[in-house]
């Protein structure tokens, strides 16, 4: 790879980091062309340049509100981890707990959060707590499901081998089960963190004096579609950044996993 004969511009253009940006640019152009071609009026879909204009012009405000939303998201995500992983361990290691709790968990997950979100405001007021809980409600489930799957799919031969070598329960868990479960645990964390963003905004929609959800409501009331789209862009960026953050932690914790080995693509 070091002896790449391609010119610099090609290396930059096709580098892993540039690819999504390239796609975004293509999508922006398509968006603009579609609007011009089909004469889509700005009160239905705003032009990309108007959205970019608001993104730049309203940046201080967008930044301020996005911090609020990020705090709520991170709070909900932390709660999801704190409750989700222990819960998953209990389910994975105890058939009794699984039979009691798992069906109920699935049941609770099918409740539309937007329907009960107003109650959170009634119970917990207008502060950050209802948003954190909304984020938690959405972020919790994927962590549980994928962590359970991760621990259940641990190779039983490996467990037997460890036992035959007189490894204690803790050692077996730390050396065999946990490392094998981590990849799917992280898959769950990645889904969770993006959903937590959605949860936080749902919470803000329902009752809030700040945050991106609050800004979205105001933009909507004023037919300010460019501002609304700008807020959505910022919101997606929060999701992307948090996703990348989880990805980096994953690389640090399981550098050996196939998805992070650079030679993987070469052998595939």
């Amino acid at each position: 790879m070091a002896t790449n004969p391609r010119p610099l511009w090609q290396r930059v253009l096709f580098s892993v980091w540039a690819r999504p940006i390239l796609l975004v640019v293509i999508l922006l152009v398509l968006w603009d062309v579609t609007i011009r071609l089909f004469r889509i009026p700005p009160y239905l879909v705003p032009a990309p340049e108007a959205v970019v204009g608001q993104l730049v012009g309203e940046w201080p405000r967008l930044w301020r509100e996005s911090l609020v939303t990020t705090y709520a998201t991170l709070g909900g995500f932390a709660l999801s981890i704190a409750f989700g992983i222990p819960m998953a361990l209990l389910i994975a290691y105890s058939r009794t707990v699984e039979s009691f709790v798992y069906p109920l968990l699935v049941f609770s997950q099918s409740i539309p959060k937007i329907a009960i979100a107003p109650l959170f405001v009634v119970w917990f007021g207008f502060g950050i707590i209802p948003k954190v809980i909304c984020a938690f409600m959405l972020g919790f489930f994927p962590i549980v499901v994928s962590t359970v799957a991760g621990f259940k799919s641990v190779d039983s031969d490996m467990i037997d081998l460890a036992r035959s070598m007189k490894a204690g329960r803790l050692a077996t868990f730390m050396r065999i089960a946990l490392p094998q479960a981590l990849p799917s645990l992280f898959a769950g964390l990645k889904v969770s963190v993006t959903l937590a963003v959605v949860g936080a905004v749902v919470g803000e929609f329902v009752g809030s004096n700040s945050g991106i959800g609050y800004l979205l409501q105001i933009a909507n009331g004023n037919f300010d579609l460019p501002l609304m789209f700008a807020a959505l862009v910022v919101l997606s960026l929060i999701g992307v950044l948090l996703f990348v953050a989880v990805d980096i932690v994953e690389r640090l914790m399981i550098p050996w996993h196939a998805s992070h080995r650079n030679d993987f693509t070469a052998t595939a």
Partner: protein
Amino acid sequence: MLKRISTFLAAALTCAMVNGPVAAQPKDKVILMLNWYVYSEHAPFFLGKERGYFEQEGIDLDIQEGRGSGVTVQAVAAGTAQFGYADVPTMIKAAAKGAPVIAIGVALQTSPMSVMGFTDKNIKTPSDIKGKIVAVTPGDSMSQIWPLFLKKTNLKDTDFQQVAGDAQTKLNAVINGQADLLLGYVMDQAIKLQDATKKNVYPIRFADYGVNLVSSGIVVNKDYLKKNPDVVKRFMRAATRSLEEAAKNPDAAVDAMLKANPKSGVKDSALVGMKATAALYKGPDNPNDRPFRAGSKNMNETFALLVEYGGLDKATSGKVEDYYTNDFLP
């Protein structure tokens, strides 16, 4: 053209002679999208439908519920619905952004906007608001006019506390005591609060303190209007009759609404709401006008308020006559 007129006349004649469901006559199917889920304010349209006012005008009316005036206006602009029952100031803001919509009749000439709380809290005048907590919905029409009410009543935003939430949260907050007051409509939120708690509600009306904007009205797509002026005229004739009859006979109107939508309310409070709604049909301009006729003074004042407080851009929004017409009223 002559042929079309004569066919129309013939059709009208048959209609008049038979005066009832005419199976052979193809009716104009139109959708009226409401501003919200059905509640007492909408009862007149159900009365008109039940009594056959629309049918007699050759209109097959389909009433659909809405999710806020903004969405209704967008649906009308996009042609999903031909007619919308929506907040006219909201429509003006959308039209100023380029939506091809126009108001062809203003139902509520006096603003139903108010700040309300339970009667036992004893908040009867604006100065009583001091030190209280007010629940608002960010971005809605009332929260935008609220600063003007404060200015007219010499209140500052520091005189009270404000919490923000969606429509349901606002009600919940007052019901559960998280807020003392909310910004709402006299015939909507006031009734909902009473239904939920059986406690009386006292609304301080914005209109009583010199803040009057027109409110709900009928909006239509401009292209549709250009192509079907005749349908629009017939629609407004039936709608005017509906409002007049509902004002005279609120009981029947509420019954018609509850028959069509049993979940839309409770008879007693819906009746109170219908009567409160009918009280808003008359505007300050000419109290003897038939329903839907917008007075120019009233419209001008509304427009001026929107420019000053409602986020309407003075430079690009033209004049108020671009946003409404009385030409299609009977």
